[in-house]
């Protein structure tokens, strides 16, 4: 017996899958064990990610060969700083969302599909963990597909018309994206004979001059493939419908984590597999930068005119994923760190906002922003948490949104692009214009209509968003360890 921490990443993925496959059997035969099982496996995920983060921080990154086969032949897992960072983000937010979801889903879903929901949720988590740790392009493709299917499925599990349509649209577009990713992978495999990211990075500079077209085509396909999955600006069309229609915990996970995991995969492919010289010759990062700037402005502007609160949050997500891509495409130390930080921060903010919106919908049935007048008196803690999230979105100092904006702006200035700072500040102002009226109306709006019927809010739901709100404040005031860790991450990547 020799079980040291190096086995943990694969144990995480395998155990999540195991739990996912156990879930339908358990739900059929012993219904009461299903929820504890999913909670236990997510808690295991979170704890082991924490342990892994500590171990990697202490011992340094390590590689793991599946089946004992060394890289050019076998699948390699690379557990570097980036991977543990992503693992921790996904596991903690995922745990909170499902703890919240246990209450909300009982309310919103039919009883017979709840077990399947858990299966899909665990599959989604397993595939996201897989994308984070794998160092093999094809393996990544497989995990991307698993996550796409399970993400679609947790939207369509609520069999309403909007859900089905949104998830079909999402499925078709995301399959197209996967096709693009597969083709791009094939292009790279064709000229290098490798699928391993590290080996690709070694071989590509040598074959670059011989096969320029292949590299070009692969770049284009990767941009479009990951772009459509991560909802980069002109390819975002599926996102608002999908994230609006899904059940609230699903929206939180989809908006907070799932689009981020593709952005992280984009980072892995573009900054780890491709050598940096390519971007000097081919302006693909400039395109992404341009698109992300457009995304930031477009998302904010369109969010301003939305009526449905979840739709507004979904459009806001488009703007926020723009920030992440902005950081990545600038390719500077601080900018990439800012993008990664925004993955973490936005995961917290947006899941909290979606969960808070979920509580509002759960207890009052209100979805329209205009109806939320005076809600702050009825649901003080929920709206208080929502306020923290909104302030963080605007980038008020003291919340974590400020820190990532700070990092991104300084990263842009490091590279001599002051116009990006203008974009960031402008989008902050726009965020203020559409988030603040909600908060103000909720707390200070004078309600003329008859009293609202407020259902009882389960404590678990409330505690989960309060926990996230606390996290927002905590990482807004004390981000130093996180920033130091990200500094290490970025140094390892670039």
């Amino acid at each position: 017996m020799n079980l040291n921490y190096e086995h943990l990443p694969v144990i995480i993925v395998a155990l999540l899958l195991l739990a996912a496959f156990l879930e339908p059997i358990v739900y059929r035969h012993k219904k009461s064990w299903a929820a504890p099982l999913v909670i236990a496996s997510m808690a295991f995920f979170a704890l082991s990610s924490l342990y892994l983060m500590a171990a990697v921080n202490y011992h340094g990154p390590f590689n793991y060969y599946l089946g004992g086969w060394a890289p050019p032949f076998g699948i390699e897992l690379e557990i570097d700083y980036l991977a543990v960072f992503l693992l921790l983000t996904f596991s903690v937010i995922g745990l909170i969302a499902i703890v919240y979801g246990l209450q909300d889903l009982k309310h919103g879903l039919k009883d017979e599909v709840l077990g399947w929901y858990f299966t899909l949720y665990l599959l989604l988590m397993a595939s996201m963990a897989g994308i984070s740790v794998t160092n093999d392009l094809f393996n990544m493709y497989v995990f991307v597909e698993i996550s796409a299917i399970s993400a679609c499925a947790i939207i369509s599990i609520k069999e309403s018309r909007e859900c089905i349509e949104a998830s079909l649209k999402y499925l078709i577009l995301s399959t197209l994206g996967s096709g693009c990713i597969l083709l791009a992978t094939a292009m790279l495999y064709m000229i290098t004979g490798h699928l391993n990211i590290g080996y690709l990075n070694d071989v590509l500079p040598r074959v670059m001059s011989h096969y320029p077209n292949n590299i070009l085509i692969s770049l284009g396909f990767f941009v479009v493939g990951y772009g459509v999955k991560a909802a980069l600006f002109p390819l975002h069309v599926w996102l608002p419908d999908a994230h609006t229609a899904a059940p609230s915990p699903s929206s939180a996970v989809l908006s907070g984590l799932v689009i981020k995991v593709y952005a992280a995969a984009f980072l892995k492919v573009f900054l780890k597999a491709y050598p940096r010289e390519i971007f000097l010759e081919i302006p693909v990062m400039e395109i992404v930068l341009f698109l992300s700037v457009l995304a930031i402005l477009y998302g904010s502007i369109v969010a301003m005119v939305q009526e449905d609160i979840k739709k507004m949050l979904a459009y806001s997500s488009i703007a926020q994923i723009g920030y992440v891509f902005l950081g990545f495409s600038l390719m500077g130390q601080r900018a990439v760190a800012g993008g990664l930080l925004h993955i973490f921060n936005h995961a917290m903010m947006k899941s909290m906002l979606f969960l808070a919106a979920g509580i509002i919908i759960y207890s009052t049935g209100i979805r329209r922003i205009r109806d939320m007048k005076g809600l702050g008196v009825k649901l003080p803690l929920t709206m208080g948490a929502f306020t923290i999230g909104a302030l963080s979105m605007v980038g008020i100092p003291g919340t974590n949104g400020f820190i990532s904006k700070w990092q991104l702006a300084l990263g842009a200035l490091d590279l001599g692009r002051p116009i990006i700072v203008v974009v960031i500040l402008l989008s902050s102002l726009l965020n203020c214009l559409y988030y603040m009226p909600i908060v103000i109306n909720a707390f200070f709006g004078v309600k003329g209509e008859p009293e609202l019927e407020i259902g009882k809010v389960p404590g678990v739901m409330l505690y989960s968003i309060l926990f996230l709100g606390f996290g927002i404040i905590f990482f807004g005031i004390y981000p130093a360890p996180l920033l130091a860790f990200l500094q290490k991450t970025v140094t390892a990547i670039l």
Partner: protein
Amino acid sequence: MIDIEVLSKLFNNYYYFAAIILFIIGFHTMLTHANLIKKIIGMNIMETAAFLIFVSIGYIEGGRAPILDEGFDQIYMNPLPQALILTGIVVAVSVTAYALSLIIKLYQHYGTVDADEIARIRSYKP
């Protein structure tokens, strides 16, 4: 005048050519057909193109299957792409099945599998 060299390149790499044609057919089907089931078929054709490219990377003229046997010293093909594509096919099958089930659900709600019709029902133009 078509350059003879280009032609011969095309001829030698006919599987890539076929893959491109398949890709275009699939994409065309996805774009031009409003019928959702046809869309899914187009999607499958597209994926087939990707699989063809991938498999053809490992193909060697005259090579044999890579099975450990007598006379192992012959040229054999790269088994990796085939193995990978097997996985890819599994994924494609599951996506197709899932998409079809969604279409069935959609048909229950709208009474049609025509995307244009559904869009028309959803977005009413005065």
